[in-house]
Every structure is written in C-alpha cells, then in structure tokens.
C-alpha cells in the first residue's frame, strides 16, 4: 500500500473532517464510516438538489443538464428513480449475465493471444462500453463510438471534455427512438410518465448523462485494478479456483478498496455545523466514500485485501436512497471477470504502468491507471 491508496489515513485518525481546497472552494470532507453513512441518510441537512454540483469537482463547465435521479431530493427522487430502475436491474437477468460472460471470454482470449495488452484501452474500456449496450438494450455496434470517449467522458487524457458530444449523441438517440421506438433505454424514457406527464428533453438527457458518465471511469478503473491485483498476486487466482464461492466476497472486497470515486458532494441548504466547522448556506460537504471504506474502526486490517472478508459493510456504491443504480451491473461484470480470469488465465505480467492520480491541493489519491501494459498467459488445459 502507498499513501496514494489511502491519503486520508492520518486526517481520519485525527479529526472527523478534512478541510480541503477544491478549485478554490473549501469543502469539509467527512472521513469516518459512521459519519458518512449518517450524512448520506440526512437529506434535509445534506441535499442533492444541486444541479451539476453533486460531483466534486463540480461539472458546471462540462455538462448542461441536471443528472436524474442523482441530483434530486425526496419526495420527487423516488418517482424519478423508479422510471429507470427496470433497466438497471437487467444485469440480474440470466440472459444478460450470459452475454457479459461471453464478452469477458472474448476479451480474455484476445488478451491471451496478443503479444501485449493495454488493459485500460484494449480490455476495460471495450468491456465497459459493450456491457453498457446490454444494460441499455441497444445495438452493440453503438459501443464503437462510446469506446472513443476514453476513460472519463468529462476529463480524458487529451484534456478535452467529450461532454458536449455525448449530449448531442444522446439527443439524436432520443429523436431516433421517437421515430422508431424499440425496447431500449431511449424509447423507454420517451414513453415514460413522471407524475402524470411526459419527461422533457432536458430530463431525458439528464438520465442519459449519468448512465453514460457515471458508470464509465468507475467500471473501467475497477476492472483494471482487479486485473492488476491478480498480476501482483497470482496465488489469488489459485485461491478463487479452489474456492469459487469466494467470487462474491472477493468482488465486494475489490469494490471496497479500489473505489474509483473518492467522494461525492452534498449541499447544505442552510448554515450547518459539520463536526465543528460551519458550512454556509449553499456550500458543499463531501461524503468521502473512499476514506470510510478504510476506516479501521469498521474494517480490521483495512488496507489488506481479504478475498473472503465478511462482514464487509463497505459503501463503495454509496448509502441510502441515492445508492448507485449501476451497482447490479458493476457486480455482474466484476464477478464474471474474477471467475473467468481464474478459469482462463495462469499469469498476468505487467510490462509498464502509468497510474492515474487525482491530485488536489490537500491530497493525492490513486484512482486507477491511464495505461497498464501486460502480457496474459493461458492456464494449461484451458482451451
């Protein structure tokens, strides 16, 4: 473990919050597990009714729409969320699960055949983009374009946000689905009724925005880091093979430790005391999931990977009513990835790596990799 894996260790032991500078804004970061869960449940004091300001850093410069249902408070939140829930439950459908397994088989076979593979661009980005077509029930060919959006739609390596392209693309998809409706996500939102009325284009784009942006870098980094872990710990693959029942607990442990999303914001509607710090009305706090997931008060040996950790009350998918809609998708993908890698792969040797660091004024945190070149070798006896 390096300090970049848990940059909040000292601050969390010292104080419940870290007052951190984020692009000129002072944001108290709530660091401890119990405090983060409590704040996530308290919608009155810590509101999500803040278009484009729930993520930290804020996304005011990179998107024009409010994300639904993330940036909405109760009571409307529930009605917004239930409109898209059926799509986000699709990964539990055995047919969708079978497609995810087949996709991972194909990607692993290609990686094994290749002289070397950049896990980020040749494996995790195609995995995320193609699997998303299964979730949204659209033609898999659409993924070819999505793959070109890179690791993070709003901030990929070339520094140019793909946000405007994505918004235009989604608008076209809604318009096309209006003319020729199908069983896909875009058609479903065109037909959906919210509290007795149709959704506006702004609302539909807000749903699409989070479906594309929210589940992107998170899935990509988690998949990459799981493969990196197996590269460094080949015995873990033996362990999964010997104890296939560990696939689920291993996935949860990887979610806990490799959470790409450092934190998410909430806005205080009125002046609020947050662990001794006064937050002015309209200012933000951070629910620092990544710190809470390493709180030694809750997790014994918090920086150790324990493939069979149980209980493991991590909050990698958030907590409370805003918990991650894509969690079933993430679980289906990572469980399949762990299982298939154990079945097919003998060793992964890292050739070169470029970690992706989130560098802020008060901390630097490793969120994933920009590039991770590796050589995969096939397990003997596995065709």
């Amino acid at each position, binding site marked *: 473990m390096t300090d970049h894996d848990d940059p909040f260790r000292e601050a969390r032991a010292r104080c419940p919050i870290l007052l951190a500078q984020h692009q000129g804004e002072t944001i108290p970061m709530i660091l401890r597990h119990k405090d983060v869960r409590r704040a996530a449940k308290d919608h009155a004091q810590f509101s999500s009714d803040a278009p484009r300001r729930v993520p930290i850093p804020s996304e005011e410069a990179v998107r024009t729409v409010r994300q639904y249902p993330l940036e909405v408070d109760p009571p409307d939140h529930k009605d917004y969320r239930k409109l898209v829930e059926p799509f986000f439950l699709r990964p539990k459908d055995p047919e969708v699960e079978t497609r995810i397994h087949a996709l991972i088989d194909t990607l692993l076979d290609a990686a094994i055949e290749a002289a070397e593979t950049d896990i980020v661009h040749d494996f995790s980005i195609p995995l995320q983009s193609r699997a998303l077509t299964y979730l949204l029930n659209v033609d898999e060919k659409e993924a070819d374009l999505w793959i070109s959006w890179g690791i993070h739609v709003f901030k990929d390596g070339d520094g140019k946000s793909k946000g405007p392209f994505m918004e235009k693309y989604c608008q076209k998809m809604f318009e096309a689905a209006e003319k020729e409706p199908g069983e896909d996500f875009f058609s479903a939102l065109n037909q959906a009724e919210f509290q007795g009325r149709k959704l506006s284009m702004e609302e539909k784009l807000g749903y699409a925005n989070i479906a594309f942006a929210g589940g992107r870098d998170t899935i990509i980094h988690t998949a990459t880091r799981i493969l990196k872990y197996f590269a460094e710990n080949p015995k873990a693959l033996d362990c999964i093979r010997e104890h296939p029942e560990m696939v*689920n607990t291993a*996935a949860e442990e990887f979610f806990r430790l490799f959470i790409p999303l450092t934190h998410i914001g909430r806005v205080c509607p009125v002046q609020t005391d947050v662990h001794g710090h006064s937050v002015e009305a309209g200012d933000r706090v951070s629910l620092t999931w990544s710190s809470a997931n390493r709180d030694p008060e809750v997790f014994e040996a918090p920086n150790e990977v324990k493939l069979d950790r149980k209980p493991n*009350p991590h909050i990698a*998918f958030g*907590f409370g009513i805003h918990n991650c809609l894509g969690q079933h998708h993430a679980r289906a993908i990572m469980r399949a990835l762990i299982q298939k890698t154990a079945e097919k792969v003998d060793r992964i040797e890292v050739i070169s790596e470029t970690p992706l660091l989130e560098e802020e004024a008060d901390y630097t945190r490793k969120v994933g990799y920009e590039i991770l070149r590796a050589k995969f070798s096939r397990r003997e006896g596995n065709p």
Partner: protein
Amino acid sequence: MPKVTFIQTDGKRVVVEDAVGTLMEIATDNEVEGITGDCGGVCSCSTCHIYISPDWQDKVGDPEELEMDTLDFNEEKKPNSRLGCQVEVTEALDGLVVEVAPEE
C-alpha cells in the same frame, strides 16, 4: 433438513422444507419476494432485512456489532430485525418463521 417459513410483505408464505445456507441465500434461491441479497452476503446492502418471529429470537440470537450498525440506519428496523445474510440456518432452527421487512 430444517424447515423455514418466510412471510412476504403481501402476506404470502413461502415454506422451504430443506433449508441450507443463510436466510438470505435460502430466500433468494426460493424467490422470496423482497429479499434480493444484492451484495452477496457481506452485510453491506441491507436488501435481506427480516424480522425474526418473537418465539425464535433467543435461538437465532442478536446481531453482531457491524450488522447492528448497518441495521441502525434502516428506517424499518425493529427490535427483532436481522440481516438474513448473517443468520446461518442450522438444525436448531428447524421450524423458524421470519417476516420480510418492507423496503425502506
């Protein structure tokens, strides 16, 4: 094999005659409505929240600290609440009756 009865929130009873595993695993294997066990049984998601029939509370026992912490945040928590993933069904629990808690 122990027998376990789940009472769903719609009042329907699901009786499992040959219960093996945790209450969450038994419920999901037998399609008990309202128990989804999303996190696979690590006490992270609370989607296997149940109420133990008062007659059985002593035999089932109390939650451990981490389970209790998670339950404490659940708005539907009652004194006989448990997370199904943390209750392993043994022969001693033959005849157990539990109610599925409503969704938060």
